[in-house]
């Protein structure tokens, strides 16, 4: 029993932390896609956030400032995407790819001198008493602030999308941009704001990796998490609650394979490291095969170019 407690507690805790960056990035992208825009540049925006967040936190000693800077960096990358796709009507798929390629290069360039430098942890927000509960105590209440912020974002995004007028307008724009325009809604402006939000969320997701999870800066350190976040949005069928489920699933797979590696099983580590990517393909397949469900839930204007005069 006690052995199980010793094993399970840290596993649960690690799962929550591994899920956090995916949660931020996927929730951001979910809002973007609900407005009818497909931004494949999540990975690039995360890298920008990771490097800028790390640099600012390391220079100022304040991880809060680091996260704010990361959000701004992600937002700036989102703005770039928005200007190209919404202002200049560029193809969203191509622009998203460009944003990722650009983010990889830019973050590597900017972060050159910062590779391998240490940084102290974010001061953890602890809830006295509860932390001392066995098994679930440290897992549920011993995490740092960002983990809770990420969890809080799930109901917040849900509330925004489905209970506020602004959320209704955003969904309407993603569903039928021509009709929204005819009713007088500023399609481009609404989408731009959504893209900025998605950028900021990706930036925070990246900074969580470089400031809390690792914590250090390395080139390409996101290792495909931006793409996994994109897959999670499809998996969630555009529902915030299911994003949380998906993020935990991936957190679980990631941590499970790390633990198996750590316990010295005879399986080569590279093959175990494939698991999160293979799991992504698996859930994507499982959810996409239900065409009717995707059609009912996917924003009808996703990825389509909008110009008021046609």
């Amino acid at each position, binding site marked *: 029993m006690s052995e199980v407690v010793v094993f399970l507690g840290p596993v649960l805790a690690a799962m929550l932390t591994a899920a956090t960056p995916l949660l931020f990035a996927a929730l951001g992208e979910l809002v973007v896609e609900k407005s009818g825009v497909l931004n494949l540049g999540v990975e690039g925006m995360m890298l920008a956030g990771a490097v800028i967040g790390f640099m600012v936190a390391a220079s100022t000693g304040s991880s809060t400032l680091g996260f704010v800077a990361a959000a701004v960096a992600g937002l700036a990358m989102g703005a770039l995407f928005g200007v190209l796709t919404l202002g200049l009507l560029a193809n969203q798929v191509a622009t998203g790819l460009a944003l990722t390629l650009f983010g990889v290069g830019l973050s590597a360039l900017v972060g050159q001198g910062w590779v391998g430098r240490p940084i102290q942890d974010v001061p953890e927000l602890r809830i006295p008493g509860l932390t001392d509960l066995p098994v679930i105590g440290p897992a549920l209440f011993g995490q740092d602030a960002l983990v809770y912020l990420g969890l809080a974002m799930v109901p917040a995004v849900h509330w925004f999308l489905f209970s506020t*007028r602004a959320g209704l307008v955003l969904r309407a724009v993603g569903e039928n941009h021509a*009709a929204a325009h005819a009713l007088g809604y500023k399609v481009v402006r609404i989408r731009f704001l959504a893209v900025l939000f998605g950028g900021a969320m990706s930036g925070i997701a990246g900074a969580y990796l470089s400031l809390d999870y690792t914590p250090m800066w390395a080139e390409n350190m996101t290792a495909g998490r931006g793409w996994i976040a994109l897959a999670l949005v499809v998996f969630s069928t555009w529902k915030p609650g299911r994003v949380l489920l998906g993020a935990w699933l991936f957190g679980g797979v990631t941590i499970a394979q790390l633990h198996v590696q750590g316990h010295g099983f005879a399986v080569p580590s590279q093959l175990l490291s494939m698991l999160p990517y293979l799991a992504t393909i698996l859930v994507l397949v499982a959810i996409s095969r239900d065409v*009717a469900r995707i059609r009912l839930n996917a924003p009808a204007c996703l990825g389509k170019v909008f110009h008021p*005069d046609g």
Partner: protein
Amino acid sequence: MASPTPRLDLRGITKRFPGCLANDHVDLALLPGEIHALLGENGAGKSTLVKIIYGVQHADSGTLHWEGREVTISDPHAARRLGIGMVFQHFSLFDTLTVAENIALGIEDKATSLKDLSVRIRAVSERYGLALDPDRHVFDLSVGERQRVEIVRCLLQDPRLLIMDEPTSVLTPQEVGRLFETLRRLAAEGCTILYISHKLEEIRALCDRATVLRGGKVVATCDPRKETARSLAEMMIGTSLSTPERAAAAVTGAPRLEVRHLSTTTDVPFATELKDVSLEVRAGEILGIAGVAGNGQAELMAALSGETLIGDETAVLIEGRPVGHLGPRARRELGLAFVPEERLGRGAVPELSLSENALLSGYAREPLVRSGIVHFGRARSYAERIIDLFNVVTHGHKAEARSLSGGNLQKFIIGREILQRPKLLIVGQPTWGVDAGAAAAIHQALIDLARGGTAVLVISQDLDELFVLCDRISVLFHGRLSPSTPSHQTTVEQIGLLMGGLFGGSGEDEGEIGRVA
């Protein structure tokens, strides 16, 4: 009539688009409580003018006066705040949102909760006899119900000017009657109604005054009740109309197309399932299929063209051969030609040239491809032949399909299919959104084709068109097809009742009507 202050007075409205002058110094005064028709052909500038009134577009010059006061309508929010409501031709609704959410998006009152709004929706819809359930999703509604959503959305704001853009093109004659009652009642309460249409009989039945647009200019203002449909049409077109000549019911030959007990299932949302559809088209005759959009037309077209395959291959036969399992290419090779309802985006690729669009369906029956290599020279001369024979107005075979007007593109597509000498031609909405000149030419071409021995099947919502063209007419409703009636033995009213679902004696269908009504 003493001249009260007009509710809305447009003076010298001009709007230019690249390559066309949509509105040229248009003057229009709308009086309180009148039902005013705005009449004109497709492309005459009606839609642009009402979009300017509703703030969707802005005039290059000219002024708008609202109840005697000059105003600038910067966007639809401003229009709604003045008291202008609009029911769009292509509904401005959101399929996956509920009725209440759709209505919330179209009103200016941002404080009301959806719950309170639902109560108000029920009250207004009861008052005007427009039954609506606020909690249903729009994709679940019939076309008539969707229009009701738009109307109730306007009524909730106590409009003083209601714009209706081609509101009846998707309704059955009986639904049109109910709509007119509502409009008359609104006008009696003092609301001004601007009614846009090209259906002349309707305008004569409903409107107090009519303004006729042609080529972006006001060419006449009249009392439609004192005009005939013919005189109104001549004002609209500017020349006298030629009605297509129809040969006396030709001698019909062997069946070219037979459909036997065709049923389809679908797991796609918003689609209609076909239920036990049977029909037959013989060489030399034209069969018409009437019905309100969304009753299975798209599914029937796809099942006949081969875009969806059918499990039972004998459900569709071309010249007695089972083809249910064959795709479009194989069916074309057997002599089927096909004109889809969606011209740009299905019948033609917008970004490709006319030559390339000639190749799109021409490859199956014309010698345009040899051992996998395209003969572009032949595709070009094929396109030029179509352009010549069908009077397609364009600057040549290199023009992109999207640069053609609706009527000219339709002439090109119909020409492309007819020149393949088909044994069987299926046409969806042959003249939807096409100007009168092109429509007459298209009708004549279809009649000539049938007289030459081809079997023709026309699927259309336009009953006038079906009565001009067809030897027999059937009606599609909720995926079921009525037996056909010779068109000289039936009337628009009878077909209209069938379009509303009144098939003889089928209790199940009556249940469904109960829901619609």
